[in-house]
Structures are given as structure tokens and as C-alpha cells.
């Protein structure tokens, strides 16, 4: 088994896939802490459905560089949703539900009626649950994912203290003269980027697992913002690596394998947290 692994690792595209997987997991876990504590976990879920709708449009209209469609549409949806949330929480909730089911339905309808692909259900399945093999990522996808991840990680590190202030207490941040609206916008764009890069790894339906699980697991054990952030990043990267290696060796779908590892990690940290308290 070890030898198989080493032989796999000698292929550059395997390395590429691992790099992308780790970056995606890292990005989503960084934003996860903010989204979970701001009670915005469902935004990631809603947006990934929008991204599926955008993917369908790209597929039907025959645009091969589908990221060029998915990225702007998802970003726009993220901005609209966060704007809405500032005005009213309850309606924002419903707006997301509507937006996500509509794009899911419309996306599938579009692909079904106008789809040119001979393997329709295969296409739909890999968009929803991630590429059956992560090795099918194209060179340009790898590059785009890497650039977007660097933007998200860099943005998060530079804005860390401001994101903390806005997440903990928006009113105080405003009183400090922080342009909270603008930072929420930046946050929305970063979330959209994460959704777009994450979709190629675990697929639209499973994406929020990458966002939510590491942060929730870390929050069971760590009690400061810094330690939660670092711990969730470590959990996410570990689970992504374990998941990808397992999927290569055992020939399982990569997205679901990673998510199962994340869920197990959450369970472990929950027990650890309970043991500490008790």
C-alpha cells in the first residue's frame, strides 16, 4: 500500500491535486470560524447551490472555462445575500432558501433540457458531490484554484484583526470607524471564492462541510479566536490530506471521503471537549 502511494506521488498531477485540496480546505476553514460565529453557516450552503446553477449555465452555453461564469455569479449572489442580512435576519434566511433551491432546480432543468453531454447524470453527480477522481482537474483549474486560495488566505491574514472585531461586535467596530459594510463585502467575495474553488474538490452539496466542521470541532476544545482559527485550519488540512490519500488508495469518491473524515474529526473533538469539561 505504501509503495502504491509513493508511486502515485511521483506523478505531478497527483501533487497538484493534493496542493489544491489542501488550499481549498485551508481557505474554507479560515472563513468557517467567522461564518459559524456570525450564524451564517447557511450562506455557504446557499451559495454552493447558486454555483451549481451557474455551472449549469456554463455547461449549456458551451463555455469551456466554466469558472469564468461561476465565479462572478457566485460573488454577486454572496454580495446580495450579505447585504440583505444587514437589513433583516429572518427574511435573509428565507431569501437564501429560495435562492438555493431555485438555482438547484433551474440548473438541473437547464442541463436536462439543453444539455449536450452524453453523460448527463455523471456531470450532475460530479458537480454536486465532487469529481469522482480529483485527478481530473485541468492544469488551468489548478492554477486558478491556487491563485484564488492565495488571495483568500492573504486577505484573511491581513484583515485578521478587523475580521475579529466585526465578527465579535459589529456595532463597536462601526463606532471605531471601521467601514463595516465594505469589510462585509470583502468577506462575501472571499466566501464566493472559497465556494468556487471548493466545488471542484468536494462538489456543491458537500461544500459547507468543509466550512462548518473544522470551525465547530476547534470550538469544542479551543477558547480563544486565535487558537480556534489555527486549530480549525490544522483540522481542515489534515482531514483533506487523509481524505484524498484514502480516496486514491481505496478508490473512493474524494469529496465524500474528505467530508467523512471531517465529521469523524468533529466527533473526536466533541468527545475531547466533553472530557475536558467533565
Amino acid at each position, binding site marked *: 500500500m505504501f509503495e502504491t502511494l509513493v508511486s502515485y506521488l511521483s506523478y505531478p498531477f497527483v501533487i497538484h491535486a493534493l496542493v489544491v485540496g489542501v488550499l481549498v480546505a485551508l481557505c474554507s476553514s479560515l472563513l468557517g*470560524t467567522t461564518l459559524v*460565529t*456570525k450564524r451564517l453557516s447557511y450562506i455557504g450552503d446557499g451559495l454552493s447551490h447558486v454555483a451549481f446553477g451557474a455551472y449549469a449555465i456554463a455547461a449549456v452555453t458551451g463555455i469551456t472555462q466554466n469558472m469564468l461564469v461561476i465565479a462572478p455569479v457566485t460573488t454577486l449572489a454572496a454580495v446580495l445575500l450579505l447585504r440583505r442580512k444587514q437589513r433583516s435576519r429572518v427574511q435573509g434566511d428565507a431569501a437564501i432558501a429560495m435562492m438555493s433551491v431555485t438555482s438547484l432546480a433551474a440548473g438541473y432543468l437547464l442541463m436536462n433540457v439543453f444539455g449536450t453531454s452524453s453523460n448527463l447524470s455523471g456531470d450532475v453527480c460530479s458537480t454536486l458531490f465532487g469529481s469522482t477522481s480529483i485527478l481530473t482537474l485541468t492544469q488551468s483549474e489548478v492554477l486558478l484554484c491556487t491563485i484564488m486560495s492565495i488571495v483568500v488566505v492573504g486577505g484573511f*491574514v*491581513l*484583515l*485578521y*484583526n*478587523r475580521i*475579529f*472585531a466585526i*465578527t*465579535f*461586535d459589529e*456595532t*463597536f*467596530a*462601526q*463606532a*471605531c*470607524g*471601521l467601514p463595516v459594510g465594505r469589510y462585509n463585502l470583502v468577506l462575501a467575495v472571499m466566501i464566493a471564492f472559497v465556494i468556487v474553488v471548493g466545488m471542484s474538490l468536494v462538489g456543491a452539496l458537500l461544500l459547507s462541510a468543509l466550512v462548518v466542521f473544522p470551525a465547530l470541532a*476547534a*470550538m469544542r476544545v*479551543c*477558547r*480563544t*479566536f*486565535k*487558537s*480556534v482559527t489555527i486549530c480549525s485550519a490544522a483540522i481542515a488540512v489534515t482531514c483533506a490530506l487523509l481524505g484524498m490519500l484514502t480516496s486514491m488508495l481505496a478508490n473512493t469518491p474524494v469529496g465524500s471521503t474528505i467530508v467523512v473524515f471531517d465529521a469523524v474529526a468533529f466527533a473526536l473533538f466533541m468527545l475531547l471537549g466533553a472530557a475536558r469539561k467533565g
Partner: protein
Amino acid sequence: MTRLACTDLCVGYSGMPVAEHIDFCIGDGELLCIVGENGIGKSTLVKTLLGIIPPVSGELQIDYTGHGKGVGYLPQRGESQRDFPASAGEIALSGRLVRIGPRAFFGKEDREAARRALERVGALEWYDEPFDRLSGGQQQRVLLARALCATSSIIVLDEPTTGLDPEATQSLYQILDSLRADGMAIIIVSHDVDAAITHATHVLAFEDVAPQFFSVADYRAHRHARLCEVE
């Protein structure tokens, strides 16, 4: 020295007035208590004082000389996030955001300032404690330290003692008294009139007519007269 002055100020949201004809001023070493029923425009006034919403009309002047550009703020309890993973130190430090300008990270002096602010309110021992494990009174002190990190001239407290036990309330007022003695201007919004005016130097009363500004002695007389009227 006058720190903050309102002249015929009208506050409200997107041009719609909530409270009008507000006139008052507060100087260094004074404590203004804003009293009145809920929904009468106290919180709107606070948001205006903090610069979160612009005044509808009238004038609001704040003297920032010698101090950062922010007004320190202690929000109503429950406005900040519940079960948020943060230590008291991290929260106090976030008040320094006002001072770091475009810099991305806090420096050594910011950390020291956060420690000093926590010490000032008797909360330094909880520096590494998780915020949500502290009691209500302890949390308020940490948030007060955060406000002190943002400013050293004027702080606004919105219902700071709601939900606190008498002992915690008393110790919070003691801290405010000592800050005032150090020359800070303090504005408290409160519906607990009796406790607040014991410590106030001035009162802004939102009653049925336009908000009236009193010295605390005049307000006692005014209140007494009103109570007699009712009887």
C-alpha cells in the same frame, strides 16, 4: 473643557426624525445620564454620537484633541456574539483598532495598552480567560476596557447595568466614578434613574416634550415637582 456638544440636534434614520431639539454639552470629568422610556430615541442618539448614523439636522461637535478619533463605546448587553471563542485579552485589544490606522497587526504598545486598560478596570487577571466563561459583571468590565483602549477622553455606555446583580452594578459605577475623576467624559444611557443620578453630574431627560438638559441638582428638583404633580 467641553468635550461634546449638541445644538438643536435632530437624530433619526435615513432622514426620518426619531428625536428632535436635543441640546446638551458635556465636559471632561462630567458624567451625563440620558434617561427616558424605551423607544423614545435614546439608542438613536447614541448611534449618532458614535458616528454610526449621521444627524438628520443640527450640530454635533466632538473635540478629539489629544486622543484617537473614536468615541469609546460599551454596547447594550447581548449585542455582541454569544458563545464566541475569544479571550478577554483579545477583546480588549480589539479596541485598539481605532489607533492602528492602516496597519494590519497590533504592535507591542497596543498589547501593553490593552493590559493597562484591563488593569484599570480590575480585569487583568482574566486576560487569557474565555470571555463567555466570565460573569455578567466581569464581561462588562472587559468591554469597558475595550472602550478605554479606543479612547481616553469620552465613552458612551448603553444600559451598562441591565441584568447585573447589585454588587456588580455597584462596582461598575465605582470604576466609572474613578474614570470621571481622571477627567474622562462619560455618557450613560439608563432606565435605572435612581442609581444613575447618584453618580451623574448632568441629566438629559427624554420626556413627553423635547429632551431637557439639567444639572443633576435641577433634575432632582424637576423630578420631585413632577412626582408631586402626579400625586
